[in-house]
C-alpha cells in the first residue's frame, strides 16, 4: 500500500499523519539519485558501552497522542514510540519486502494465495508470555471488527478470505485465517497480488494483556482508551516501556529477554522536543538522535558534536489539476472534459513553468530536488530513470501555451483561454511551516511569468482540514492545488490514481490508466520485470497526461550525536535497533 503524507511541506505542522508509519529509522531504500551526499550509518565504530543511556527526540510542536497499539494509533509520534518496544513479526528488506529474518518466517504458496507464517522459538512478550499465532490473529480480528474505526481496514486486510463477511458482522470467525498451532498459522487471500509481500500485516497484539474483544471481555472502544495500550503497553521489541509522561516523554528499559539478544542500551528516554528548539538541544548534547526540520539544516550543518544522516524520504510534493468530480453513487471518479484544467498542454506548460530547482536549492539548501515521476526513486526497480520530468523551462511553457491557443489577447499581460475568455486559475495550498507561503507565492510568480493568472483561493493558505475538506469535496473554488503524498512500502499507485480511488483528487481518469494500474497488481506482476515494464508505461502516461505535476522529492534529515554507535537509517542495513548504543 501507499502511505500518504499530507503535510504539504515539512516544518512544524500537524502531527496527524500519517505516512511514516513504518518508522523511517528502521527502513529505507537503496542509495538514490540524491544530489547531496549524506551517510546512512553513523561513523563512530567504537564498541557500545555497557549499560549506556540515550535520549531521543520526537520533534513535534504538540504532544504525542499515546495510542500505543499498532491497530489503533494514528500519529507519527506514536509510531516512533511503537518502534522501540514493538515490532512486526516479519522483518523487511531494503525493498520493503518481507523477509525471514524477523521473529517469524513465512512461506507463500504456489498460487501466491496462501501465506504460512511460523513464529520462532523464544519470542516473548515483555511480560514473559510467548508470542502466539492467536495474537496475530487477534490483530486481524480487531482490524476487521465492525466497530473498528481506525484507518487500517484496507484492501490488504479485506483481501483475506472471509474478511468482508466478518467485517459486516455476519460471521464471528475469519475463515481465511487458520491457526495450526501456537506457532504456525495460515492466511488465505481472495486475490493474489504482489502487494502481499509489501503490505502483509504482521503486527501481533498481546491478547492476554489487552483483553479479548472476541469473548466480550472488553469492547473496541474500551480497548482504544485502555491503560493497557496507553499507560503500560507491551510488545516484544528490544525495549520495554517503563513509564510514560502523557504527551511528553517515554522511558524505556532494556528487554533482557529480547529474542535477538541483549539490547545494548540500559535505558532510553524519548521525549517531545519542539522544532523551535531542537537544534539548540542537539547542539547542547541533550539529544542523541533527532530528525531535523529541513528549514533548519543551515544551522545544524556545522554543529560539531553531531553527525547528519539523511535519506531520500518516501514522499513527493505535487501540483494537482482538478479535472472532474467524484461520483458518490457510482463510487468512481468522473472526468469532466470541459474542466478549466482540461487542457493537457496547459498542465504541461504549468509544470514547465515551475522553478523547483531553485526552491530546493535555496529554500532547502539542496535537501529537496525536482521530482521527475510519480514513482519515487526509492523504488529502484520501478522508478523510471528515463522519465526526466519537465524541468524549469519558461520558454517551452510559453510555446506550449501559444500553440494550444492560450494567448494574451487583451494585452493585460495574462493569457486568455482558447476561447479568448479571461483565464484565472484558482490555486489552493496548505498552510503550515514557514516555507509554505513563499513556495506558493513563488509558483504563482512562475506561472505569472509565463502569462498565467493564478490566484490563491480565498487569498490565503488553508489549514490542513479546510484544505482537504475542499479538495476531497471537489470544491468548485479550486482549480489546482498543491499536495503531497508519502509513499510507503508499495509502489502500487492505484490508491491514488485509480478510477475508483476516492483519493484520486484530480479526478483524472483514462482507460489506459485503468489498464496499467490493473496490470501492475495482477498475479503476473509477481514477476518484477513485468511489473517494471507496466509501471514504466504508467510513468510515461503520467508524464504525458500530467494529472498532477510532481514538484520535489525530499531528504529526511537525522542528526546523531557522535557518541551514537551501531545506528543506521538504511532500511537495507544489517544493523538492528537492539544493537544501537552509545560509546564512552
Amino acid at each position: 500500500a501507499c502511505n500518504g503524507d499530507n503535510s504539504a511541506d515539512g516544518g512544524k505542522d500537524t502531527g496527524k499523519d500519517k505516512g511514516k508509519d513504518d518508522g523511517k529509522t528502521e527502513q529505507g531504500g537503496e542509495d538514490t539519485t540524491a544530489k547531496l551526499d549524506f551517510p546512512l550509518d553513523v561513523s563512530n565504530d567504537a564498541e557500545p558501552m555497557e549499560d549506556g543511556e540515550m535520549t531521543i527526540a520526537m520533534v513535534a510542536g504538540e504532544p504525542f497522542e499515546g495510542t500505543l497499539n499498532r491497530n489503533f494509533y494514528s500519529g507519527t509520534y506514536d509510531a516512533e514510540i511503537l518502534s522501540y518496544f514493538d515490532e512486526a513479526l516479519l522483518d523487511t528488506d531494503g525493498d520493503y519486502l518481507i523477509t525471514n529474518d524477523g521473529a517469524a518466517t513465512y512461506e507463500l504458496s504456489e498460487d501466491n494465495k496462501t501465506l504460512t507464517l511460523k513464529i520462532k522459538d523464544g519470542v516473548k512478550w515483555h511480560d514473559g508470555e510467548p508470542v502466539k499465532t492467536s495474537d496475530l490473529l487477534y490483530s486481524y480480528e480487531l482490524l476487521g471488527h465492525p466497530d473498528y474505526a481506525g484507518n487500517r481496514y484496507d484492501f490488504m486486510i479485506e483481501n483475506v478470505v472471509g474478511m468482508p463477511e466478518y467485517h459486516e458482522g455476519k460471521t464471528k470467525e475469519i475463515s481465511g485465517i487458520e491457526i495450526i498451532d501456537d506457532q504456525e498459522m495460515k492466511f488465505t487471500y481472495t486475490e493474489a497480488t504482489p502487494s502481499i509481500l509489501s503490505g502483509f500485516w504482521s503486527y501481533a497484539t498481546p491478547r492476554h494483556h489487552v483483553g479479548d474483544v472476541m469473548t466480550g471481555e472488553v469492547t473496541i472502544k474500551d480497548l482504544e482508551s485502555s491503560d493497557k495500550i496507553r499507560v503500560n503497553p507491551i510488545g516484544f521489541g528490544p525495549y520495554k516501556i517503563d513509564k510514560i509522561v502523557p504527551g511528553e516523554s517515554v522511558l524505556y528499559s532494556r528487554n533482557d529477554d529480547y529474542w535477538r539478544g541483549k539490547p545494548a542500551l540500559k535505558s532510553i528516554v524519548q521525549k517531545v522536543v519542539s522544532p523551535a528548539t531542537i537544534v539548540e538541544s542537539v547542539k547542547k548534547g541533550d539529544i542523541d538522535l533527532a530528525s531535523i526540520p529541513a528549514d533548519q539544516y543551515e544551522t545544524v550543518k556545522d554543529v560539531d558534536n553531531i553527525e547528519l544522516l539523511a535519506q531520500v524520504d518516501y514522499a513527493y510534493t505535487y501540483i494537482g489539476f482538478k479535472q472532474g468530480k467524484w461520483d458518490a453513487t457510482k463510487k468512481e471518479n468522473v472526468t469532466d472534459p470541459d474542466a478549466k484544467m482540461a487542457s493537457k498542454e496547459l498542465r504541461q506548460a504549468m509544470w514547465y513553468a515551475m522553478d523547483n530547482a531553485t526552491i530546493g536549492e535555496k529554500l532547502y539548501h539542496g535537501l529537496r530536488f525536482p521530482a521527475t515521476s510519480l514513482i519515487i526513486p526509492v523504488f529502484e526497480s520501478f522508478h523510471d530513470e528515463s522519465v526526466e520530468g519537465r524541468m524549469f523551462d519558461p520558454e517551452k511553457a510559453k510555446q506550449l501555451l501559444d500553440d494550444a491557443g492560450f494567448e494574451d489577447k487583451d494585452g493585460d499581460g495574462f493569457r486568455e483561454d482558447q476561447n479568448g475568455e479571461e483565464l484565472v486559475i484558482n490555486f489552493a495550498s496548505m498552510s503550515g511551516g514557514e516555507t509554505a507561503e513563499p513556495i506558493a507565492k513563488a509558483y504563482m510568480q512562475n506561472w505569472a511569468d509565463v502569462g498565467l493568472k493564478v490566484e490563491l483561493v480565498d487569498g490565503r493558505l488553508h489549514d490542513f482540514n479546510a484544505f482537504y475538506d475542499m479538495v476531497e469535496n471537489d470544491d468548485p473554488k479550486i482549480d489546482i492545488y498543491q499536495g503531497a503524498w508519502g509513499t510507503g512500502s508499495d509502489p502500487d499507485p492505484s490508491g491514488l490514481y485509480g478510477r475508483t480511488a476516492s483519493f484520486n483528487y484530480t479526478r483524472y481518469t483514462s482507460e489506459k490508466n485503468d489498464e496499467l494500474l490493473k496490470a501492475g497488481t495482477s498475479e503476473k506482476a509477481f514477476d518484477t520485470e513485468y511489473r517494471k515494464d507496466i509501471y514504466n508505461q504508467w510513468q510515461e502516461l503520467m508524464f504525458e497526461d500530467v494529472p498532477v505535476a510532481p514538484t520535489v522529492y525530499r531528504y529526511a534529515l537525522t542528526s546523531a550525536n557522535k557518541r551514537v554507535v551501531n545506528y543506521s537509517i538504511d532500511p537495507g542495513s544489517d544493523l538492528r535497533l537492539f544493537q544501537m548504543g552509545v560509546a564512552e
Partner: protein
Amino acid sequence: MVTVNQKELIAKEKANNPSLLKTIWREIRHDKMAMISLVLLLGIIITAYSSPLFIDQEQLQRVNFLETWEEPSETHLLGTDDGGRDVFGQLLIGTRNSFTIGLSVTLIAGLFGLTVGLIAGYFGGLVDNVIMRIIDFLLVLPSTMFIIVFIVIVPDYSVFTFVLMMSAFAWFGKARLIRSKGLAERELDYINASKTLGTPSWKIMFFEMFPNLSSLVIVNMTLTLAGNIGLETSLTFLGFGLPASTPSLGTLIAFATNPDIVQNKWWVWLPASLLILIMMLCINYIGQAVKRASDARQRLA
C-alpha cells in the same frame, strides 16, 4: 447692554477657555516625553502610510529565492526574509497594516462599548441588569480560543474580518468600564438637572454624560490602542496570522520561532519588535499627557 469693552473681555474669555483638544495639545507641549513621543509616532505613521508612494507592494511581495535571509545592506536596509523579500519595505507596510488594525479595533470596540456602556449606565435598573448579565457572560468566554476558532471558520480572512473579530471580543470590557462610571455619573445632579430641563435621554447620554467620561475613554483608548497594535502578533506566531498578502508587524515578529532566527537573523524580527515597543511607549506617554490634560489637578501646563 454689552459695551465694547466687555466685548473684548468676552472674546478674551472665549480664547482663554480652550477645548479639550487644545488643552491636550498644551499639555503635550509641556511634557518633553510626550512631545518627543508625538513627533516620533507621527513620523512613524506618516512614513508608514505614505509608503505606497515609494514602495511597489507587488514588487515587494515577490519572492526571490536567490536573496533569502540576506543581512542588512545598502540594497536591503534591513535585509531580507525567507522569501528574499525586503524586510524594510515589509516593515513599513506592516506598520501601516498593524496600526490600521490597532486603530480600527480600538475605534470600533470603543464606539460599541461606549454606546452599550452609556445606555446601561444611564438607564440603570432593568436595562443595566440585562446588559450586564450579557456582558458578564461574554467576559467568561476564553477570548483567545474563540478568536482562533473564528479565524478557522471565516472563509475570507482579511484585515477587515480580523478587525471585526477582534472588536467583537474587545468591546465588553470597555462597556463595563463606561457603565460603572456612567452609573456613578448618573447620580450627579447635572444629569438630574438636564432631565428636569426637558432634555431627551439620548442627548443627555451623548452630550452631557459622555463628555464627562471622555477623558476616561481617551485614556483607556490610548492604552488599548497600544495593546491592539500588538494583537495579531501572537496569533501569527500560533499560525493563525493574517494571510501573507497582508504583511503586518506580527508577520515579521513571528519569524522569531527558533533560537537561530532570534540570534542570527535578528534583522527580520527585531526591528518590528522595537517598532511596536516604540509605538506603544509613545502612545503611552501621549496617553499620560492626555490623562493629565483631562484632570485639571494634574496639569503641568
